[in-house]
């Protein structure tokens, strides 16, 4: 079984050299810590920066330099700043090759719900609806089940949707799954996790091939 850092590490393996990547808040943010050796990617933050670097050293924080999570950041050589219209032009125009974001629910046809729980204070979708409607390569990073132990991989989402039919890949604490043709397709097991455990934790249609390798981190 993976922890949050393990999920992030596995997702980082999906990155390819030269890609532009947008990471959501939460587990996705951790992906930046696990870029494979020999690979160079540029991180886009939708509030208007390309080429985000690590957090600043203490005392060097600049209030005019933050990411979409409102955290103070730095920039890498080759960075650029731009306005929000340009930022979402990059996203909507599919110039960002990979988007990683968290989810509350994903359905077997790739619908995603991650912005609203009826009856609770709603904070808003931010850029998530633009990201999921636009990106060709959306990876969801999340726990396989919620705090009550219920599956977050469902036949249909019960929560209000963020986007329809857009999720291509899911990495959870238990497994890596592709989403296509109306089903989750099991690709890899997390270390020490059995296929049976994954099947039991998955409420939506799950296609299990004969051989399901354990992921390598």
């Amino acid at each position, binding site marked *: 079984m993976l922890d949050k850092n393990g999920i992030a590490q596995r997702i980082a393996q999906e990155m390819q050299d030269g890609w532009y990547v947008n990471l959501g808040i939460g587990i996705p943010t951790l992906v930046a810590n696990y870029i494979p050796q020999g690979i160079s990617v540029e991180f886009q933050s939708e509030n208007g920066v390309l080429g985000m670097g690590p957090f600043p050293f203490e005392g060097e924080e600049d209030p005019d330099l933050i990411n979409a999570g409102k955290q103070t950041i730095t920039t890498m050589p080759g960075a650029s*700043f731009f306005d*929000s219209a340009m930022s979402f032009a990059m996203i909507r125009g599919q110039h960002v090759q990979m988007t990683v974001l968290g989810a509350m629910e994903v359905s077997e046809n790739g619908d995603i719900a991650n912005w609203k729980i009826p009856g609770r204070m709603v*904070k*808003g979708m931010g850029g998530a609806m633009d990201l999921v409607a636009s990106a060709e390569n959306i990876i969801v990073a999340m726990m396989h089940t919620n705090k009550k132990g219920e599956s977050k991989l469902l036949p249909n989402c019960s929560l209000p949707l963020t986007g329809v039919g857009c999720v291509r890949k899911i990495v959870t604490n238990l497994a890596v799954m592709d989403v296509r043709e109306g089903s989750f397709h099991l690709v890899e097991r997390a270390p020490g996790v059995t296929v049976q455990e994954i099947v039991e934790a998955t409420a939506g249609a799950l296609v299990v091939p004969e051989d399901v390798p354990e992921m390598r981190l």
Partner: protein
Amino acid sequence: MINKVVADAREAVSGIKDDMTVMFGGFGLCGIAENCILAVRDSGVTGLTCISNNAGVDDFGLGFLLATRQVKKMISSYVGENDEFERQMLSGELDVELIPQGTLAERCRAAGAGIPAFFTPAGYGTEVGEGKEVRSFDGKPHILEHAFDAQFAFVKAWKGDEAGNLIFKGTARNFNPMMAMAGKITVAEVEELVPAGELDPAQIHTPGIFVQRIFQGKNYEKRIEQRTTRPRNP
């Protein structure tokens, strides 16, 4: 040339009236028009519809206008970190319309660019798309979104000149340029105001044609919401 330079924030917001629709630049507390927000508060106008990506925090930014209940409706992509906001929303005192961030930005740009409507994939199949025209392009469904209509836009820049040209710093640019384009009256507050001719014409982010009033703000707090740092190597 007509003088766009006004003395202070109070003069800059003159003409704002109850029930107007107004835009505020900024992302979180980054790049917000600190002086104008206070001046709008002090003007006493009520019933405002505010278009702003976020709604400030309890004791800063647009939180000031929420505390005084001058806002009737917020149009934003993300609100939160604001207890008074939550209270007013849940009690029904405050109307809230949530819009995808890219759509929010593009609807501002469209307003400034004379594009009354455009198609975007964002929000299709969700609550956001309900009641909106759907059309597929290359097999992909999109929804029709419309330009905003705002009487005032309050933006914050780093440098500005007397012709109204603006330059932004870092990620404090965010929504400010599009809102500057969109406002019928655009008020820009800047950290440094210089005479026309001192800024490089090739480095202007917002051409002065979009700015009707400009002034040098003061007492900028520039609060940081999430102060994240890394340790120095020992």
